[in-house]
């Protein structure tokens, strides 16, 4: 048994072994996340192919400015996260805490904007299963409902990952405040960074697919709703 203050868990022999294990584990976890979202991206591709016009019309109801703002927030939060990991690596506790706080701040801003977007869609009767009403061309109704279902399911799953990420961030912040990390041991900060970047990256794919692709163009042959 190693002593209680050592960052090396009892079943590892060296800190390198522990760090490499955590790194492989996190990358594998992210691989499972790719498959989790991958199934949804597949469904999106299938239905976009099946309902091209409805998806174009429905995605025109997205507010690309809010989506763009959120994209910006997440990119900035990824940059601050990189600086947080770098501060941890160099043993700068103040920098680590500051950049973690900035990351949390932009992550929270993302969720706030997302809340207003959801609220806006709710008031517009865009939520399948809750209050979906289609006022456009009736032949597009099924496809539009499918679009909005995928929109809420995919962005909802992404938002859930953001919320989990913010929870983890608070834990990392507290442990950093307690001085648990050093240039020799800052593994949790780095692993959390990988997760955070991954969640940002998912959004980088969601944003163009849901907000930009084909939006604001007349559906094949004209006739806007």
């Amino acid at each position, binding site marked *: 048994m190693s002593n209680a203050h050592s960052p090396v*868990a*009892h*079943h590892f*022999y060296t800190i390198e*072994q522990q760090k*490499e*294990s955590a790194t*492989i*584990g996190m990358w*594998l*976890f992210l*691989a*499972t*996340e790719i*498959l*989790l*979202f*991958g*199934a*949804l991206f*597949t*469904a999106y591709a*299938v*239905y976009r192919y*099946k*309902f091209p016009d409805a998806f174009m019309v429905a995605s025109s109801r997205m507010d690309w400015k809010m989506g763009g703002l959120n994209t910006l927030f997440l990119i900035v939060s990824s940059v601050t996260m990189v600086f947080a990991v770098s501060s941890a690596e160099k043993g700068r506790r103040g920098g680590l805490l500051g950049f973690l706080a900035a990351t949390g701040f932009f992550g929270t801003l993302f969720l706030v904007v997302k809340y207003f977007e959801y609220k806006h869609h709710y008031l517009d009767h865009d939520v*399948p*299963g*809750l209050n*979906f009403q289609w006022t456009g061309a009736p032949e597009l109704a*099924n*496809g539009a*409902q*499918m679009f909005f*279902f995928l929109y809420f*399911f995919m962005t909802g799953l992404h938002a859930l990952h953001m919320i989990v990420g913010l929870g983890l961030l608070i834990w990392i912040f507290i442990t950093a405040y307690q001085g648990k990390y050093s240039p020799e041991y800052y593994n949790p900060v780095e692993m959390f960074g990988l997760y955070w970047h991954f969640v940002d990256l998912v959004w980088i794919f969601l944003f163009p697919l849901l907000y930009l692709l084909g939006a604001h163009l007349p559906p094949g042959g004209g006739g806007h709703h």
Partner: protein
Amino acid sequence: MIEENVSLPRIHYLNSHYGWKSWLFTTDHKRIGLLYMVSITLMFFLGGFFALLIRLELLTPQADMFTADTYNKFFTLHGVILIFFFLVPSIPATLGNFLIPLMIGAKDVAFPKLNLLSWYIFVIGSLFTLWVVAVGGIDTGWTFYTPYSTTFANTHVIAATLGVFFTGFSSILTGLNFIVTIHKMRAPGLTWFRLPLFIWSLYATSIIQVLATPVLGITMVLIAAERFAKVGIFDPALGGDPVLFQHMFWFYSHPAVYIMILPSLGVVSELISAFTWKRVFGYKFVAVSSLMIAIFSFIVWGHHMYVSSMSIYAGMLFSILSYLVAVPSAVKVFNWTATLYKGSVSYDTPMLYALGFIGLFTIGGLTGLFLASMGLDRHLHDTYFVIAHFHLIMVGGAVMGYFGGLHYWWPKMFGRMYPEWWGRLSALIVFVGFNLSFFPQFIIGYLGMPRRYHVYAPEFQVLNVMSTAGSSILGVGYLLPLVYFIWSLRYGKVASNPWRAKGLEWETTSPPPPENFLEQPIVTEEAYNYPTRPAQPGKQTGKLTGGLNPPASPTATATGTGREAEVV
């Protein structure tokens, strides 16, 4: 088997801590393996009970005991429980959890707390399923096909799919843990091609668990969401595509077949080596064939969907790819057979299970080729031929391997032997009962009896009666080990390495100490490095039984702590 004159070690993982907290909050991979063993044993007998009810109804062509709806629930619960809550976790979560760190000379898996968490998640999933059983069941079939499951079924679909979601999550975490453990926790000198073949097969299994299960998870959530919110993601009336569901479901559930069978293939490699007292013939080919099976498993799912509006060209592609799986599977079977040649074969219980496995797996695999060919599948699809085929793989294969492994490593886990005579009897009963259950089903399936009906044409009755008789015998064969295993925990003869088997797991005491090895082992030899000739006479601690057993290795001494000379 060699009778040893040994006593239990003073401190081992079972007596190092006492009390229920020491079990429910343990992070010891050995104890977690046992927690899984108890949980899946419950699920095994529950699922088996539903199988017996199904076979009871099928004794006669008419509906005697159950209505169509009740029968639908029975075969659904039978499938859901035994696939997701027994077969998928079976060998990896019990034997794998127990043995991987021991076999690679580690103190524990890479993430012990995550390991415990995955058991708790499994329990949550099991509770969902038990709740479904208690409140009225589910009738969709274990495949949850849409739009029936999403739109028409009025049974407890949401709870059942969430149960599957949870157990899938548990399976992902176990697989992830094993991959990292095998990469980073191996003892010095234990290179990849020195690893036991069981480790190779679990590594391949874990890759499938990690990469395929998330797709099933999200598919289950989509079904629950569709039922909950009444949106048409898979409902054709609302523009949804039920075939998309089948693609997503089989993208997991075909590879899942290999999650179930690959660990057994690994167990059988260990057994064949230990009971022929030889290195497995073509070790590298057998090792790599596990990875090949894992890779191929991801590109064959379409063969479940030849009759689901699949184009003939896509069907041809999936057909050819499915045939490919036969190659690495055959590599294993041929190499095991070659290992037997001129081996010093002993017919102890684990070996009987292993030999039964080889025969049944071969037939199960070959009938899989029938089903992989598009034209024949059109005739055999959804008949009892399919049922017989996959039961040969999953029961004749996976369960036989699990039982063989349990018997083989039982003295390692508990330091006591099960009664060998009863063990051989159970292996024999299981083999006879199994064949009587499922061979008639090949015939009735070929003659056209469809699966999932509780009534059938009278001319199928004789074969169905044979099948039901066989399943009753099989049930006895499964109950016997339950009884004598429990008996042996207290009354079994103390044993350390009754097989004189090689491998790091046998280098430590039985049962092992809490952190497995008193000092870190260093490996200097390949796996299964059995002497080709009987070793030096040395001191022999027990008498030989069975006639063909090799003599005891001189260093595996009666204290049970004997460390082989080559492995310090």
